Protein backbone atom coordinates (compact mmCIF):
# COMPACT_ATOMS: atom_id res chain seq x y z
CA UNK A 1 0.00 0.00 0.00
CA UNK A 2 1.06 3.56 -0.57
CA UNK A 3 1.02 6.57 1.68
CA UNK A 4 -1.51 9.21 0.76
CA UNK A 5 0.23 11.99 -1.16
CA UNK A 6 -2.08 15.00 -0.93
CA UNK A 7 -1.73 18.10 1.18
CA UNK A 8 -2.95 17.80 4.76
CA UNK A 9 -6.66 18.43 4.82
CA UNK A 10 -6.95 21.90 6.21
CA UNK A 11 -9.60 24.49 6.41
CA UNK A 12 -8.38 27.43 4.37
CA UNK A 13 -10.27 30.71 4.27
CA UNK A 14 -13.11 30.63 1.75
CA UNK A 15 -11.75 33.74 0.02
CA UNK A 16 -8.41 31.97 -0.53
CA UNK A 17 -10.17 28.90 -1.94
CA UNK A 18 -12.18 31.06 -4.31
CA UNK A 19 -9.16 32.91 -5.61
CA UNK A 20 -7.15 29.71 -6.04
CA UNK A 21 -9.97 27.97 -7.89
CA UNK A 22 -10.50 30.99 -10.10
CA UNK A 23 -6.82 30.80 -11.05
CA UNK A 24 -6.95 27.06 -11.78
CA UNK A 25 -10.08 27.46 -13.90
CA UNK A 26 -8.53 30.30 -15.85
CA UNK A 27 -5.31 28.36 -16.45
CA UNK A 28 -7.42 25.44 -17.68
CA UNK A 29 -9.48 27.62 -19.99
CA UNK A 30 -6.42 29.34 -21.51
CA UNK A 31 -4.88 25.94 -22.20
CA UNK A 32 -8.15 24.58 -23.62
CA UNK A 33 -8.53 27.58 -25.91
CA UNK A 34 -4.89 27.66 -27.07
CA UNK A 35 -4.47 31.18 -25.69
CA UNK A 36 -0.75 30.58 -25.72
CA UNK A 37 0.51 34.04 -24.86
CA UNK A 38 -1.84 34.48 -21.90
CA UNK A 39 -1.10 30.96 -20.69
CA UNK A 40 2.63 31.54 -20.86
CA UNK A 41 2.23 34.80 -18.92
CA UNK A 42 0.89 32.81 -15.94
CA UNK A 43 4.32 31.32 -15.25
CA UNK A 44 7.05 32.67 -12.96
CA UNK A 45 10.61 33.06 -14.26
CA UNK A 46 11.76 30.00 -12.30
CA UNK A 47 8.86 27.84 -13.44
CA UNK A 48 8.82 24.08 -13.93
CA UNK A 49 6.22 22.23 -16.00
CA UNK A 50 6.55 18.49 -15.44
CA UNK A 51 4.68 15.43 -16.69
CA UNK A 52 6.46 12.40 -15.19
CA UNK A 53 6.61 9.17 -17.17
CA UNK A 54 6.55 6.91 -14.12
CA UNK A 55 5.87 6.85 -10.39
CA UNK A 56 8.55 8.06 -7.99
CA UNK A 57 10.95 9.42 -10.59
CA UNK A 58 13.67 12.04 -10.45
CA UNK A 59 13.31 14.27 -13.52
CA UNK A 60 17.04 14.92 -13.55
CA UNK A 61 17.77 11.19 -13.74
CA UNK A 62 14.80 9.69 -15.55
CA UNK A 63 12.80 10.18 -18.71
CA UNK A 64 9.71 12.38 -18.43
CA UNK A 65 6.90 13.03 -20.88
CA UNK A 66 7.46 16.77 -20.35
CA UNK A 67 10.13 18.40 -18.20
CA UNK A 68 10.15 22.06 -19.21
CA UNK A 69 12.04 24.78 -17.42
CA UNK A 70 10.93 28.34 -18.15
CA UNK A 71 13.07 28.53 -21.26
CA UNK A 72 11.63 25.34 -22.71
CA UNK A 73 8.08 26.43 -21.87
CA UNK A 74 8.82 29.48 -24.02
CA UNK A 75 10.17 27.29 -26.84
CA UNK A 76 7.12 25.02 -26.64
CA UNK A 77 4.82 28.03 -26.86
CA UNK A 78 6.78 29.61 -29.70
CA UNK A 79 6.57 26.36 -31.62
CA UNK A 80 2.80 26.18 -31.12
CA UNK A 81 2.48 29.83 -32.14
CA UNK A 82 4.08 29.12 -35.53
CA UNK A 83 0.85 27.33 -36.42
CA UNK A 84 3.06 24.66 -37.99
CA UNK A 85 3.48 22.40 -34.98
CA UNK A 86 1.87 19.63 -37.04
CA UNK A 87 0.66 17.60 -34.06
CA UNK A 88 -1.39 20.69 -33.16
CA UNK A 89 -2.18 21.96 -36.65
CA UNK A 90 -5.10 21.98 -36.56
CA UNK A 91 -5.22 22.29 -32.80
CA UNK A 92 -7.05 19.73 -30.70
CA UNK A 93 -10.50 20.77 -29.50
CA UNK A 94 -10.25 20.63 -25.73
CA UNK A 95 -12.29 21.01 -22.57
CA UNK A 96 -11.12 19.98 -19.14
CA UNK A 97 -12.76 19.61 -15.76
CA UNK A 98 -10.80 20.61 -12.67
CA UNK A 99 -12.16 19.17 -9.45
CA UNK A 100 -11.31 17.75 -5.99
CA UNK A 101 -9.25 20.84 -5.26
CA UNK A 102 -7.21 20.53 -2.08
CA UNK A 103 -5.19 23.43 -0.75
CA UNK A 104 -2.31 23.04 1.66
CA UNK A 105 -2.06 25.30 4.67
CA UNK A 106 -0.35 28.50 3.52
CA UNK A 107 3.22 29.00 4.71
CA UNK A 108 4.56 32.55 4.85
CA UNK A 109 7.09 33.24 2.11
CA UNK A 110 6.51 29.92 0.35
CA UNK A 111 4.52 29.10 -2.75
CA UNK A 112 1.02 27.80 -2.04
CA UNK A 113 0.67 24.11 -2.84
CA UNK A 114 -2.59 23.00 -4.42
CA UNK A 115 -3.71 19.69 -5.88
CA UNK A 116 -6.66 18.90 -8.10
CA UNK A 117 -8.01 16.11 -10.26
CA UNK A 118 -8.64 16.70 -13.93
CA UNK A 119 -10.23 15.12 -16.97
CA UNK A 120 -9.55 16.52 -20.44
CA UNK A 121 -11.51 15.61 -23.52
CA UNK A 122 -9.32 15.93 -26.58
CA UNK A 123 -11.13 15.82 -29.91
CA UNK A 124 -9.29 15.59 -33.22
CA UNK A 125 -10.28 14.52 -36.72
CA UNK A 126 -8.76 11.13 -35.91
CA UNK A 127 -10.96 10.67 -32.84
CA UNK A 128 -11.68 11.75 -29.29
CA UNK A 129 -9.85 10.58 -26.23
CA UNK A 130 -9.74 11.54 -22.60
CA UNK A 131 -6.78 12.21 -20.36
CA UNK A 132 -7.08 12.10 -16.61
CA UNK A 133 -4.91 12.54 -13.60
CA UNK A 134 -3.98 14.75 -10.70
CA UNK A 135 -2.14 18.03 -10.89
CA UNK A 136 0.09 19.55 -8.26
CA UNK A 137 0.32 23.32 -8.64
CA UNK A 138 2.49 25.78 -6.79
CA UNK A 139 1.09 29.28 -6.82
CA UNK A 140 2.98 32.44 -5.97
CA UNK A 141 1.29 35.69 -4.99
CA UNK A 142 2.56 38.56 -7.12
CA UNK A 143 1.03 42.06 -7.20
CA UNK A 144 -2.29 40.77 -5.92
CA UNK A 145 -2.48 37.97 -8.48
CA UNK A 146 -1.39 34.37 -8.61
CA UNK A 147 1.44 33.16 -10.78
CA UNK A 148 2.29 29.54 -11.45
CA UNK A 149 5.76 28.40 -10.40
CA UNK A 150 5.21 24.66 -10.72
CA UNK A 151 2.76 22.34 -12.42
CA UNK A 152 3.20 18.60 -12.19
CA UNK A 153 0.71 16.46 -14.06
CA UNK A 154 0.42 12.87 -12.84
CA UNK A 155 -1.36 10.97 -15.61
CA UNK A 156 -3.27 7.89 -14.47
CA UNK A 157 -2.27 5.91 -17.58
CA UNK A 158 1.42 6.81 -17.67
CA UNK A 159 2.76 3.27 -17.04
CA UNK A 160 1.46 2.21 -20.44
CA UNK A 161 1.45 3.35 -24.03
CA UNK A 162 0.47 6.97 -24.52
CA UNK A 163 -0.59 8.60 -27.78
CA UNK A 164 0.72 11.98 -28.86
CA UNK A 165 0.21 14.67 -26.22
CA UNK A 166 0.97 17.88 -28.05
CA UNK A 167 -1.53 20.22 -26.42
CA UNK A 168 -0.93 22.02 -23.11
CA UNK A 169 -2.00 19.59 -20.45
Amino acid sequence: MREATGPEATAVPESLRRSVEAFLFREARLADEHAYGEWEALWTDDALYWVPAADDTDPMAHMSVIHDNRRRIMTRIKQLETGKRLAQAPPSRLRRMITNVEIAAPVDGADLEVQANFVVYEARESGTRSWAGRVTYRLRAHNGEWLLSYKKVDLVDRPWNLPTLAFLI
Partner: protein
Amino acid sequence: MDAHHIDALIEPTRVHGSLYTDPEIFAAELETIWYQTWVYVGHESEVPAANDYVRKNIGPQDVIMVRGADGVVRLMLNRCSHRGNKVCTEASGNSGTFRCPYHGWNFRTTGELIGYPYPEGYGGRGQLDLGLAQVARVASHEGFVFGSLSPDGPPLAEHLGDAAGELTRLTKLSPTGELDLSTGWLRHSAKANWKFIHENETDGYHPQFVHGSIFSVADSGIGALYSENSTAVTRDLGNGHSENDLRPEFRRLGQPLGWFGTTADRLPDYVAAMQTRHGDATDEILIEGAPHVMIFPNLFVAEISIFVLQPLAVDHTVQHVTAVQFKGAPDINKRMLQQCIGSVGPAGLLLADDSEMYERNQIGVGQRSPEWLDIRRGIDRETTDEHGHLIGGATDETGMRAFWSHYRELMTHA
Protein backbone atom coordinates in the same frame (compact mmCIF):
# COMPACT_ATOMS: atom_id res chain seq x y z
CA MET B 1 0.71 -15.18 -47.69
CA ASP B 2 1.79 -15.90 -51.23
CA ALA B 3 5.37 -14.78 -51.92
CA HIS B 4 4.42 -13.86 -55.49
CA HIS B 5 1.73 -11.57 -54.17
CA ILE B 6 4.23 -9.62 -52.02
CA ASP B 7 6.79 -9.63 -54.83
CA ALA B 8 4.32 -7.83 -57.07
CA LEU B 9 3.83 -5.09 -54.50
CA ILE B 10 7.47 -3.96 -54.30
CA GLU B 11 9.17 -2.28 -57.24
CA PRO B 12 12.49 -0.40 -57.34
CA THR B 13 10.84 3.02 -57.29
CA ARG B 14 7.48 2.39 -55.69
CA VAL B 15 5.69 0.22 -53.15
CA HIS B 16 2.04 -0.69 -52.97
CA GLY B 17 -0.21 0.88 -50.32
CA SER B 18 -1.65 -2.45 -49.24
CA LEU B 19 1.72 -3.29 -47.66
CA TYR B 20 0.72 -0.89 -44.90
CA THR B 21 -2.92 -1.85 -44.55
CA ASP B 22 -3.41 -5.56 -45.26
CA PRO B 23 -3.78 -7.56 -42.00
CA GLU B 24 -2.68 -10.73 -43.80
CA ILE B 25 0.58 -9.09 -44.84
CA PHE B 26 1.08 -7.95 -41.25
CA ALA B 27 0.54 -11.51 -40.00
CA ALA B 28 3.08 -12.74 -42.56
CA GLU B 29 5.58 -10.08 -41.43
CA LEU B 30 5.29 -11.27 -37.84
CA GLU B 31 6.07 -14.84 -38.88
CA THR B 32 8.75 -14.05 -41.44
CA ILE B 33 10.48 -11.01 -39.98
CA TRP B 34 9.66 -10.46 -36.31
CA TYR B 35 9.64 -14.11 -35.26
CA GLN B 36 12.57 -15.16 -37.45
CA THR B 37 15.25 -12.55 -37.82
CA TRP B 38 17.29 -10.78 -35.15
CA VAL B 39 15.19 -8.22 -33.30
CA TYR B 40 16.60 -5.77 -30.77
CA VAL B 41 15.21 -6.47 -27.30
CA GLY B 42 17.09 -4.56 -24.61
CA HIS B 43 20.42 -3.38 -23.27
CA GLU B 44 22.58 -5.26 -20.78
CA SER B 45 22.81 -2.12 -18.64
CA GLU B 46 19.07 -2.40 -17.93
CA VAL B 47 19.75 -5.55 -15.90
CA PRO B 48 23.11 -4.81 -14.26
CA ALA B 49 22.83 -7.20 -11.28
CA ALA B 50 22.06 -10.91 -10.94
CA ASN B 51 18.28 -11.53 -10.90
CA ASP B 52 17.49 -8.10 -12.38
CA TYR B 53 14.70 -8.33 -14.92
CA VAL B 54 12.78 -6.02 -17.28
CA ARG B 55 9.71 -6.67 -19.41
CA LYS B 56 10.51 -6.26 -23.08
CA ASN B 57 8.93 -7.30 -26.36
CA ILE B 58 9.41 -8.77 -29.79
CA GLY B 59 6.46 -7.23 -31.59
CA PRO B 60 3.32 -8.43 -29.79
CA GLN B 61 5.33 -11.04 -27.83
CA ASP B 62 5.83 -10.25 -24.14
CA VAL B 63 9.47 -10.99 -23.36
CA ILE B 64 11.27 -11.09 -20.00
CA MET B 65 14.91 -10.03 -20.17
CA VAL B 66 16.62 -11.32 -17.05
CA ARG B 67 20.18 -11.68 -15.82
CA GLY B 68 20.62 -15.04 -14.15
CA ALA B 69 22.61 -15.75 -11.02
CA ASP B 70 25.30 -16.92 -13.46
CA GLY B 71 25.47 -13.43 -14.98
CA VAL B 72 24.01 -14.58 -18.31
CA VAL B 73 21.28 -12.41 -19.85
CA ARG B 74 18.37 -14.54 -21.07
CA LEU B 75 15.18 -13.80 -22.95
CA MET B 76 12.02 -15.75 -22.16
CA LEU B 77 8.42 -15.48 -23.16
CA ASN B 78 6.13 -14.27 -20.40
CA ARG B 79 3.79 -17.22 -20.48
CA CYS B 80 3.36 -19.86 -17.81
CA SER B 81 3.89 -23.36 -19.20
CA HIS B 82 0.84 -24.57 -17.29
CA ARG B 83 -2.15 -22.45 -18.36
CA GLY B 84 -0.57 -19.54 -20.21
CA ASN B 85 -0.87 -16.90 -17.49
CA LYS B 86 1.73 -14.12 -17.12
CA VAL B 87 4.54 -15.14 -14.78
CA CYS B 88 5.84 -11.56 -14.62
CA THR B 89 3.53 -8.57 -14.18
CA GLU B 90 5.95 -5.86 -13.01
CA ALA B 91 7.72 -3.71 -15.59
CA SER B 92 11.06 -4.37 -13.90
CA GLY B 93 12.51 -5.66 -10.67
CA ASN B 94 14.86 -8.10 -9.03
CA SER B 95 13.80 -11.62 -8.21
CA GLY B 96 15.41 -15.02 -8.10
CA THR B 97 12.23 -16.69 -9.30
CA PHE B 98 9.11 -16.01 -11.31
CA ARG B 99 5.99 -17.33 -9.65
CA CYS B 100 2.79 -17.65 -11.65
CA PRO B 101 -0.08 -16.16 -9.63
CA TYR B 102 -2.64 -18.57 -11.08
CA HIS B 103 -1.59 -21.92 -9.58
CA GLY B 104 1.72 -21.05 -8.00
CA TRP B 105 4.11 -22.65 -10.47
CA ASN B 106 7.59 -21.36 -9.82
CA PHE B 107 10.42 -20.81 -12.31
CA ARG B 108 14.11 -19.98 -12.02
CA THR B 109 15.57 -16.98 -13.85
CA THR B 110 16.95 -19.57 -16.29
CA GLY B 111 13.34 -20.47 -17.12
CA GLU B 112 13.60 -23.88 -15.48
CA LEU B 113 10.51 -25.08 -13.60
CA ILE B 114 11.41 -25.31 -9.91
CA GLY B 115 8.17 -26.67 -8.60
CA TYR B 116 4.40 -26.67 -8.46
CA PRO B 117 2.02 -26.82 -5.49
CA TYR B 118 0.42 -30.14 -4.42
CA PRO B 119 2.92 -32.20 -6.47
CA GLU B 120 1.17 -35.52 -5.90
CA GLY B 121 -1.30 -34.54 -8.61
CA TYR B 122 1.63 -34.94 -11.01
CA GLY B 123 3.02 -38.06 -9.35
CA GLY B 124 5.43 -36.12 -7.14
CA ARG B 125 8.05 -33.42 -7.38
CA GLY B 126 10.30 -32.96 -10.40
CA GLN B 127 8.03 -34.89 -12.73
CA LEU B 128 7.42 -32.14 -15.27
CA ASP B 129 9.88 -30.79 -17.81
CA LEU B 130 7.97 -27.59 -18.54
CA GLY B 131 10.21 -24.56 -18.40
CA LEU B 132 9.42 -21.12 -19.73
CA ALA B 133 9.92 -20.78 -23.47
CA GLN B 134 13.31 -19.31 -24.30
CA VAL B 135 13.92 -16.95 -27.17
CA ALA B 136 15.78 -19.41 -29.37
CA ARG B 137 18.87 -17.31 -30.02
CA VAL B 138 20.26 -14.47 -27.94
CA ALA B 139 23.35 -12.46 -28.84
CA SER B 140 24.66 -9.03 -28.08
CA HIS B 141 26.89 -6.35 -29.54
CA GLU B 142 28.25 -3.52 -27.36
CA GLY B 143 25.65 -4.45 -24.72
CA PHE B 144 22.74 -4.29 -27.19
CA VAL B 145 20.89 -7.58 -26.74
CA PHE B 146 19.15 -9.06 -29.76
CA GLY B 147 16.90 -12.09 -29.88
CA SER B 148 15.65 -14.36 -32.60
CA LEU B 149 12.67 -16.62 -32.04
CA SER B 150 14.02 -18.94 -34.73
CA PRO B 151 16.78 -21.43 -33.92
CA ASP B 152 18.08 -21.07 -37.48
CA GLY B 153 19.41 -18.14 -39.43
CA PRO B 154 22.54 -16.09 -39.91
CA PRO B 155 24.47 -15.13 -36.77
CA LEU B 156 23.98 -11.66 -35.30
CA ALA B 157 27.29 -10.36 -36.62
CA GLU B 158 26.25 -11.29 -40.15
CA HIS B 159 22.83 -9.70 -39.70
CA LEU B 160 24.28 -6.44 -38.36
CA GLY B 161 27.08 -6.28 -40.90
CA ASP B 162 28.49 -2.78 -41.06
CA ALA B 163 25.66 -1.43 -38.92
CA ALA B 164 27.54 -2.98 -35.98
CA GLY B 165 30.20 -0.33 -36.43
CA GLU B 166 27.64 2.39 -35.82
CA LEU B 167 26.79 0.93 -32.40
CA THR B 168 30.51 0.72 -31.70
CA ARG B 169 30.86 4.36 -32.73
CA LEU B 170 28.18 5.28 -30.21
CA THR B 171 29.85 3.42 -27.34
CA LYS B 172 33.18 5.01 -28.28
CA LEU B 173 31.67 8.32 -27.18
CA SER B 174 31.46 6.91 -23.66
CA PRO B 175 34.57 7.65 -21.59
CA THR B 176 34.27 4.12 -20.14
CA GLY B 177 33.32 2.49 -23.43
CA GLU B 178 29.96 1.53 -21.97
CA LEU B 179 26.42 2.80 -22.22
CA ASP B 180 24.05 2.95 -19.27
CA LEU B 181 20.45 2.93 -20.49
CA SER B 182 18.85 3.32 -17.08
CA THR B 183 16.70 6.44 -17.35
CA GLY B 184 13.49 4.57 -18.19
CA TRP B 185 11.41 4.51 -21.34
CA LEU B 186 8.63 6.54 -22.88
CA ARG B 187 6.07 4.46 -24.75
CA HIS B 188 4.64 6.47 -27.61
CA SER B 189 1.74 4.86 -29.41
CA ALA B 190 0.93 5.64 -33.06
CA LYS B 191 -2.00 4.42 -35.09
CA ALA B 192 0.26 3.59 -37.99
CA ASN B 193 2.04 0.70 -39.64
CA TRP B 194 5.56 0.08 -38.32
CA LYS B 195 7.10 0.48 -41.77
CA PHE B 196 6.12 4.15 -41.99
CA ILE B 197 8.16 4.71 -38.85
CA HIS B 198 11.08 2.59 -40.03
CA GLU B 199 11.21 4.46 -43.34
CA ASN B 200 10.99 7.86 -41.68
CA GLU B 201 13.99 7.33 -39.41
CA THR B 202 16.58 7.87 -42.13
CA ASP B 203 14.42 10.00 -44.40
CA GLY B 204 16.44 13.19 -44.67
CA TYR B 205 13.78 14.82 -46.86
CA HIS B 206 11.15 15.43 -44.15
CA PRO B 207 12.96 17.31 -41.34
CA GLN B 208 12.81 20.75 -42.98
CA PHE B 209 9.07 20.42 -43.32
CA VAL B 210 7.86 18.29 -40.42
CA HIS B 211 10.24 19.97 -37.99
CA GLY B 212 10.26 23.43 -39.56
CA SER B 213 8.20 24.73 -36.62
CA ILE B 214 10.85 23.88 -34.05
CA PHE B 215 13.82 24.72 -36.28
CA SER B 216 12.35 28.18 -36.78
CA VAL B 217 12.06 28.98 -33.07
CA ALA B 218 14.90 27.03 -31.44
CA ASP B 219 18.52 27.67 -32.19
CA SER B 220 19.04 24.27 -33.77
CA GLY B 221 21.62 23.33 -36.34
CA ILE B 222 19.72 20.18 -37.32
CA GLY B 223 17.79 21.74 -40.17
CA ALA B 224 20.88 22.62 -42.19
CA LEU B 225 22.11 19.02 -41.99
CA TYR B 226 19.14 17.97 -44.09
CA SER B 227 19.08 20.74 -46.65
CA GLU B 228 19.65 20.24 -50.35
CA ASN B 229 23.14 21.73 -49.93
CA SER B 230 24.15 19.40 -47.11
CA THR B 231 27.22 17.25 -47.64
CA ALA B 232 25.74 14.55 -45.39
CA VAL B 233 24.88 11.25 -47.07
CA THR B 234 22.23 8.58 -46.73
CA ARG B 235 23.79 5.13 -46.70
CA ASP B 236 22.39 1.68 -47.43
CA LEU B 237 24.26 -0.45 -44.90
CA GLY B 238 22.83 -3.71 -46.21
CA ASN B 239 20.34 -6.14 -44.63
CA GLY B 240 17.74 -3.38 -44.40
CA HIS B 241 19.90 -1.10 -42.24
CA SER B 242 20.47 2.49 -43.24
CA GLU B 243 21.91 5.68 -41.85
CA ASN B 244 22.07 9.39 -42.30
CA ASP B 245 25.81 9.87 -42.10
CA LEU B 246 26.19 13.44 -40.90
CA ARG B 247 29.95 13.23 -40.41
CA PRO B 248 30.81 15.15 -43.56
CA GLU B 249 28.94 18.16 -42.14
CA PHE B 250 30.46 17.75 -38.65
CA ARG B 251 33.96 17.41 -40.11
CA ARG B 252 33.39 20.56 -42.11
CA LEU B 253 32.37 22.31 -38.88
CA GLY B 254 35.46 20.78 -37.25
CA GLN B 255 34.25 21.48 -33.72
CA PRO B 256 34.43 18.82 -31.00
CA LEU B 257 30.89 18.29 -29.66
CA GLY B 258 29.48 20.42 -32.46
CA TRP B 259 27.22 17.44 -33.26
CA PHE B 260 25.66 17.93 -29.80
CA GLY B 261 25.27 21.68 -30.31
CA THR B 262 27.89 22.57 -27.74
CA THR B 263 31.62 23.09 -27.27
CA ALA B 264 34.29 21.18 -25.37
CA ASP B 265 34.73 23.89 -22.73
CA ARG B 266 31.10 23.44 -21.63
CA LEU B 267 31.72 19.79 -20.68
CA PRO B 268 35.26 19.78 -19.27
CA ASP B 269 34.91 16.62 -17.14
CA TYR B 270 33.56 14.59 -20.03
CA VAL B 271 36.19 15.83 -22.45
CA ALA B 272 38.99 15.16 -19.95
CA ALA B 273 37.73 11.61 -19.40
CA MET B 274 37.55 11.07 -23.16
CA GLN B 275 41.12 12.34 -23.56
CA THR B 276 42.30 9.92 -20.89
CA ARG B 277 40.73 7.05 -22.78
CA HIS B 278 41.30 8.05 -26.39
CA GLY B 279 44.32 10.37 -26.32
CA ASP B 280 45.04 12.01 -29.67
CA ALA B 281 42.00 10.37 -31.26
CA THR B 282 39.64 12.28 -28.94
CA ASP B 283 39.10 15.31 -31.16
CA GLU B 284 38.15 13.22 -34.16
CA ILE B 285 35.71 11.13 -32.11
CA LEU B 286 34.13 14.23 -30.60
CA ILE B 287 33.92 15.95 -33.98
CA GLU B 288 32.25 13.02 -35.74
CA GLY B 289 29.73 12.49 -32.96
CA ALA B 290 26.98 9.92 -32.59
CA PRO B 291 25.36 7.87 -35.34
CA HIS B 292 21.91 8.26 -36.85
CA VAL B 293 21.21 4.70 -37.85
CA MET B 294 18.15 2.50 -38.33
CA ILE B 295 18.93 -1.14 -37.65
CA PHE B 296 16.41 -3.47 -39.26
CA PRO B 297 13.75 -4.05 -38.11
CA ASN B 298 13.38 -2.13 -34.86
CA LEU B 299 16.41 -0.34 -33.38
CA PHE B 300 16.88 3.31 -34.20
CA VAL B 301 19.79 5.25 -32.73
CA ALA B 302 19.22 8.97 -33.24
CA GLU B 303 22.40 10.48 -31.78
CA ILE B 304 21.22 11.02 -28.19
CA SER B 305 18.05 8.92 -28.25
CA ILE B 306 17.39 5.23 -28.67
CA PHE B 307 14.11 4.08 -30.16
CA VAL B 308 12.72 0.58 -30.29
CA LEU B 309 9.79 -0.13 -32.61
CA GLN B 310 7.09 -2.51 -31.49
CA PRO B 311 4.43 -3.41 -34.05
CA LEU B 312 1.16 -4.45 -32.40
CA ALA B 313 -1.22 -4.48 -35.37
CA VAL B 314 -1.17 -3.53 -39.03
CA ASP B 315 -2.11 0.03 -38.01
CA HIS B 316 -0.64 0.26 -34.52
CA THR B 317 2.99 0.67 -33.47
CA VAL B 318 4.60 1.68 -30.21
CA GLN B 319 7.88 3.56 -30.16
CA HIS B 320 9.81 2.95 -26.95
CA VAL B 321 12.40 5.65 -26.41
CA THR B 322 15.12 6.42 -23.91
CA ALA B 323 18.11 8.74 -23.63
CA VAL B 324 21.62 7.68 -24.50
CA GLN B 325 23.68 7.77 -21.32
CA PHE B 326 27.39 7.08 -21.02
CA LYS B 327 28.62 5.19 -17.97
CA GLY B 328 30.82 7.52 -15.98
CA ALA B 329 29.92 10.80 -17.68
CA PRO B 330 27.46 12.66 -15.42
CA ASP B 331 27.92 16.10 -16.99
CA ILE B 332 27.07 15.16 -20.58
CA ASN B 333 24.47 12.63 -19.41
CA LYS B 334 22.48 15.31 -17.66
CA ARG B 335 22.35 17.41 -20.81
CA MET B 336 21.64 14.48 -23.12
CA LEU B 337 18.75 13.38 -20.91
CA GLN B 338 17.10 16.80 -20.84
CA GLN B 339 17.62 17.34 -24.57
CA CYS B 340 16.19 13.89 -25.29
CA ILE B 341 13.13 14.55 -23.11
CA GLY B 342 12.51 17.78 -24.97
CA SER B 343 12.69 16.10 -28.36
CA VAL B 344 11.04 12.70 -28.11
CA GLY B 345 7.95 10.92 -26.89
CA PRO B 346 4.27 11.87 -26.88
CA ALA B 347 4.95 15.55 -26.13
CA GLY B 348 8.36 15.81 -27.80
CA LEU B 349 9.05 18.97 -29.78
CA LEU B 350 10.23 16.75 -32.65
CA LEU B 351 8.63 13.33 -32.34
CA ALA B 352 5.04 14.37 -31.72
CA ASP B 353 5.08 15.85 -35.21
CA ASP B 354 6.65 12.77 -36.77
CA SER B 355 3.98 10.68 -35.13
CA GLU B 356 1.24 12.92 -36.51
CA MET B 357 2.70 12.30 -39.97
CA TYR B 358 2.70 8.50 -39.48
CA GLU B 359 -0.94 8.56 -38.48
CA ARG B 360 -1.94 10.75 -41.41
CA ASN B 361 0.04 8.47 -43.74
CA GLN B 362 -1.89 5.50 -42.40
CA ILE B 363 -5.21 7.21 -43.12
CA GLY B 364 -3.87 8.30 -46.49
CA VAL B 365 -3.03 4.82 -47.71
CA GLY B 366 -6.58 3.82 -46.91
CA GLN B 367 -7.66 6.00 -49.85
CA ARG B 368 -8.13 4.06 -53.05
CA SER B 369 -5.73 5.81 -55.39
CA PRO B 370 -3.03 6.34 -56.37
CA GLU B 371 -2.37 2.87 -55.07
CA TRP B 372 1.41 3.27 -54.90
CA LEU B 373 3.90 5.20 -52.75
CA ASP B 374 6.89 6.70 -54.48
CA ILE B 375 10.42 5.93 -53.26
CA ARG B 376 12.50 7.09 -56.22
CA ARG B 377 14.03 10.28 -54.82
CA GLY B 378 17.75 10.42 -55.64
CA ILE B 379 17.87 7.01 -57.29
CA ASP B 380 19.75 8.40 -60.30
CA ARG B 381 22.41 10.15 -58.25
CA GLU B 382 23.44 7.30 -55.97
CA THR B 383 27.08 6.26 -55.82
CA THR B 384 28.99 3.47 -54.12
CA ASP B 385 31.36 4.20 -51.25
CA GLU B 386 34.73 2.57 -50.50
CA HIS B 387 32.99 -0.23 -48.57
CA GLY B 388 30.66 -1.05 -51.43
CA HIS B 389 27.65 0.60 -49.81
CA LEU B 390 25.18 2.57 -51.87
CA ILE B 391 25.04 6.21 -50.82
CA GLY B 392 22.61 8.94 -51.71
CA GLY B 393 22.32 12.61 -50.88
CA ALA B 394 21.24 13.92 -47.51
CA THR B 395 17.62 14.18 -48.62
CA ASP B 396 17.43 11.09 -50.81
CA GLU B 397 15.31 7.98 -50.26
CA THR B 398 18.25 5.59 -50.28
CA GLY B 399 17.35 4.39 -46.77
CA MET B 400 13.82 3.48 -47.81
CA ARG B 401 15.04 1.55 -50.81
CA ALA B 402 17.51 -0.25 -48.53
CA PHE B 403 14.63 -1.25 -46.29
CA TRP B 404 12.39 -2.47 -49.11
CA SER B 405 15.11 -4.40 -50.85
CA HIS B 406 15.79 -6.43 -47.70
CA TYR B 407 12.09 -6.71 -46.84
CA ARG B 408 11.38 -8.10 -50.28
CA GLU B 409 14.15 -10.63 -49.96
CA LEU B 410 12.85 -11.87 -46.60
CA MET B 411 9.19 -11.86 -47.49
CA THR B 412 9.50 -13.55 -50.86
CA HIS B 413 12.21 -16.13 -50.13
CA ALA B 414 10.81 -17.53 -46.91
